[in-house]
């Protein structure tokens, strides 16, 4: 699995779609910072199927990004294709308080 972080985007019928590739850590700061400005629909879905390791800095950046999306864009956040490890990590650190996991 690739380690360098990148984001690809798409548009679903009713939501904005983004896929996260690689590890989410301090190197992801720039891309995650600009992401809220790209949201235009009331629902945004993040695909973690190609995501690798997420460390504490990555968690901090995701929390900040999700909070901005909820506050500024009033959008609902859905998370898909989380592996068991990242699901445990999100539960542990409260990410699921801002975003819900969907099948």
């Amino acid at each position, binding site marked *: 699995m690739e380690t360098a972080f990148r984001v690809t985007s798409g548009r679903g019928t009713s939501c904005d779609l983004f896929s996260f590739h690689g590890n989410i850590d301090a*190197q992801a700061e720039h891309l995650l910072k600009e992401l809220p400005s790209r949201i235009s629909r009331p629902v945004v879905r993040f695909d973690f199927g190609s995501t690798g390791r997420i460390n504490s800095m990555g968690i901090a950046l995701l929390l900040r990004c999700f909070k901005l999306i909820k506050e500024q864009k009033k959008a609902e956040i859905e998370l898909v294709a989380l592996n*068991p490890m990242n699901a445990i990590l999100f539960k542990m650190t409260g990410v699921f308080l*801002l975003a819900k996991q969907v099948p």
Partner: protein
Amino acid sequence: MQSHPPIVALVRDTGDNRLRKLLTDEVPGIVTVVVGPHLSLSLEKLLMTGQSPRLVIVSGRLYPAERPELVSLVRRVIPGAEFLVVSAAEDKPPVLHQLGVDRVRHLVISPAAGDTADAARGQLGHAVKNLTEGTPWTAVDYLKEGTKVHEFPLCRSDEKEAIIAAVAGLIDGDSDETELFRQKVALLTDEMLENALYAAPRTPEGEQLYRKGEQRPVSREEQIVFRFGFDGETVAMEATDGWGSLRPETVIQHLAKNQTLAGDVGETGGRGIFIIWQFLEQLYISICPGRRTVVGGHVRRSSPTDLEVPRGFHIVTTACCI
């Protein structure tokens, strides 16, 4: 033969039978005191025999939830004692705020009824031995005898990924459980190295010297070394830095804050150490102020991933470095 001051255990009158058996099995010569309304009286009687306990073991079924004042009360009677809380794996994790207030630095989780692994059993006896003899915790303590411990001194921050790959590469197998274990170990390595590379280096005023993720050389004086071993069941690992900037009270504050403020998006410090604690079975931190910090612990293939299962820790401050 050297004799140690007695070790006292404070237990509940009911519901602490398993802890009592564990204490009898693992801590020879322990004096057990059932905590009732006249606890001070019992302790004063003990002191009148001329024996001042060096270590007080407190049942997690008493403290901190049921009797939050217990440690401060005992400390008034036995001011020099070290405190060790023992919480059962099947009980709710103890709320750490009170442990922080009372400067309690040791928490052991007694194994669940069916857990017969060597690394799970014997942790209490091991903790008591280290605390009474003043021996530091090390990674090898948790590995089968003869297991090779690998050592990586760091010269540059970008060596982190190679070390993570080396640790994860020790774990063979391709089942879902093995993959989860491998990912857990990789994240633990990442967090321990991030802590040594970016959280430890501080100015004398306590300001962080480097930005997280910043690529930087590591000088010899920093003495950042990562050690790990895998005996087929248990991975033990530790990261050492030559800064010695971590403070025990800060660690407990970080653990307590993150335990109760999940989802806080402010600049909550200590999320990394909280994650390390949650994924390890037992965390140990040894601090020689201004000279060295060791953050380490172990995790087993069969360690529970259930977040409701409590985790233990030991935080010790040493006067000098070995």
